[in-house]
């Protein structure tokens, strides 16, 4: 086996994408400007879509790009704009518990990593079927139709809730006749 042949291109893809994800996530947390933070978040999401592709989840990758990288990020940016601050350069600061939180988080990472490494997984020898979208669609509309519909309802409720919450509250209710 030659060296190039022996390179597992999937592994390479994984490592590259993983590096993107981790670095961009760190930047999301660390930059001091909230807008930059959101931009890095978009990068992270796109990288993650790539990661999903390496996991044979092409439909999800598409959803990831559309929903997260597209909708969520845009929405957050809108949110930021609604809450205008004079000094965007200091819009995303740390509070006082950084060090201890860092410790806890490190422990969480170590523990989760260690646990997943130590666990003996019952790996399946099969491959993921090629027609992911077909399969997911069938399942969603047959076996998982009720959660699917509930999710739809949830989105509706969230929509209404968000409108109500974010609606401008008038102090004097002059429009009560409406």
């Amino acid at each position, binding site marked *: 086996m030659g060296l190039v042949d022996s390179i597992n291109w999937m592994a390479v893809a994984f490592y590259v994408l993983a590096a993107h994800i981790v670095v961009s996530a760190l930047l999301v947390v660390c930059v001091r400007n909230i807008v930059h933070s959101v931009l890095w978040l978009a990068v992270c999401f796109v990288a993650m879509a790539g990661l999903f592709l390496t996991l044979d989840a092409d439909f999800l990758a598409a959803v990831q790009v559309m929903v997260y990288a597209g909708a969520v990020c845009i929405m957050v940016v809108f949110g930021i704009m609604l809450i205008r601050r004079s000094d965007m350069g200091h819009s995303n600061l740390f*509070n006082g*518990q950084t060090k*201890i*939180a860092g410790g*806890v988080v490190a*422990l*969480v990472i170590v*523990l989760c990593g*260690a*646990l*997943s490494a*130590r*666990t*003996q*997984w*019952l790996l399946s020898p099969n491959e993921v079927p090629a027609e992911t979208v077909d399969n997911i669609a069938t399942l969603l509309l047959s076996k998982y139709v009720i959660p699917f519909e509930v999710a739809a309802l949830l989105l509706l409720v969230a929509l209404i809730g968000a409108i109500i919450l974010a609606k401008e509250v008038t102090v004097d209710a002059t429009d009560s006749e409406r």
Partner: protein
Amino acid sequence: MVEFAMQHAWLVPLLPALSFVIIVLLTRPWQKLSALVSIACMVSSCVIATLAAYGIFTNHEFTEKPLVYAARWFSLGLPGAPDLVVNVGVQLDPTSAMMIFMVSLVASLIQIYSVGYMEGDPGFSVFFSYLSLFASSMLLLVISSNLLQMFVAWELVGLCSYLLIGFYTHKISAREAAKKAFVTCRVADFGLLLGLLSLQIVFGTLDMVELSEKIHHFQEYTTAGVLTLIAVLVFIGPIGKSGQFPLHVWLPDAMEGPTPVSALIHAATMVVAGVYLVGRTMFLFSQVPAAMELVAVTGAFTALFAASIALTQREIKRILAYSTVSQLGYMMLALGVGSLTASMFHLWTHAFFKALMFLGAGSVLHALHHKADVWEMGGLIKKMPVTGWTFVIGGLAIAGIPPFAGFWSKDEILSMAFNSGHYVLFAMGAITAFMTAFYMWRLIFLAFFGDEKPENHPHESPVFMTAPLVVLAFLATVGGLVGTPWTPWDINWANWIWFHEAHHAEPNYMVMLGSVILAGAGIFLAYQLYYVDKARAKAHALADKYRALHTLSYNKFYIDEIYLWFNHSIVDGAAKLFFLFDIYIVDGIIINGIAAVTRLFGEGARISQTGRLQNYALVFFLGVLAVAVILAFTNPSSAGLMLGGVK
């Protein structure tokens, strides 16, 4: 009729109780009707009592074996073998028959008298209801077949006495006197209660007949020492109720009540309950000579002590009150020297002449608008002949001038004391007899004879009041004739009422003569000091000469002050101490202290409550982490459990 009365003697206390209920619930707004109900019930009760007493006295077998009707009141424990049985019932023998007759008669007379005396008082109906309740309780007391039942009635008469002393509720003195009476008697009842409890525990019964049989051979149950202790405890009750030294203090103060009450309760009936109780439980006392001695000494001392106080008092009812205490001492003395006969005889005669004198005093107060000081009276006999002359009869009776009732009974007591060899006690009794005659005639000379005081406008009392006086005066004159040494044996007091065995008292001429001389001397001295000497200069001179003694006597030997001091300093002090202890130590330090410590912890814990979500989240994850670590490293399989249920 007689048979009926004897079988239904329970009606005697019940009828007045009924009238109490009727008045309280129904007829209170109508004064005359209330009085009518009350008197009707009382007189009916008196009639039944008279018939029953007649039946008892004519049939001699009841003297030996009392007529008892009893029913279960309540019992505890297994029905077959109860741990405690209390019966209620009626016990009729000559002693109780004499008492129900005497009590119901005096009560009837006094109720009639009260119609006149209480006229116009806003509490008229209430007064009659109280009188009825009192009569009922007292009658229940005397016919009780069970000591517990008797104790119940004993407390009830105490209650009535409390209510009636404090009848003029707006007067602070009445209020305090009532309270004093109740509490003093309560102290005594504590002893009595302990005695009864001991009797119940030792002998398993409080039925008087049964108890007397068991105590007759008490050695099977207990020792003589214990029995003596029991007898002394029982005797504490009578000390309080019958105003014996040192618990006599309430009786003179009890005169705050309306005068008919003083006559009925604090002279004729209730106060003799103590004497009666000791008489009833002679089977107990007679077994323990030490207790008998105690009774006798207490009685004699009280007689002398109270008489010495009465010498200098100024208020008419107070003099009579101390005289009552003194006479009660006589009765106790008689019991102590072992003569139930003499004691009950004196009780009987005393009821009449003392009721008479109290009612007379009431008549005087009524006429003088409650001016009580005898020094401010004088010459009343001219304006109030009936009251005056009946009072004189009472005075003769109490002083012991033959043939008035008091002479016979007092003489019997003195001769019994003499015959039983208690010479010191006899001497005390004799001195008391002299003093009695003196202070009583001092009262009579000061109030009824001598110069009239211009500022007084006395008038004779209405017939409602004078009629009972006349009846009582008659009884005070002839009431003693049943017990003279010369009375035929069949109708002789000594043949009816006795303990152990009846014995005919031979006339002891020595004693008899002596007591008449002493009484005469007392009256003569009073005559000299207060009648002949119009200015009473000698009397004042005498008082000045023995200033210390006079002051002591006038201030009742400061017994009240001692009690007052005790009550205010010791009892109230202790109460305050306990209360402060409760507030500051138990509550303040211990309870609130614990609370304060808890609060301190709370304040400490509050610091952690920053209100910031991220702090909470951090702590939350620390906790999750801790749990996860523990699970992961203590139980490896749970790690798998957490991560997807593999293996």
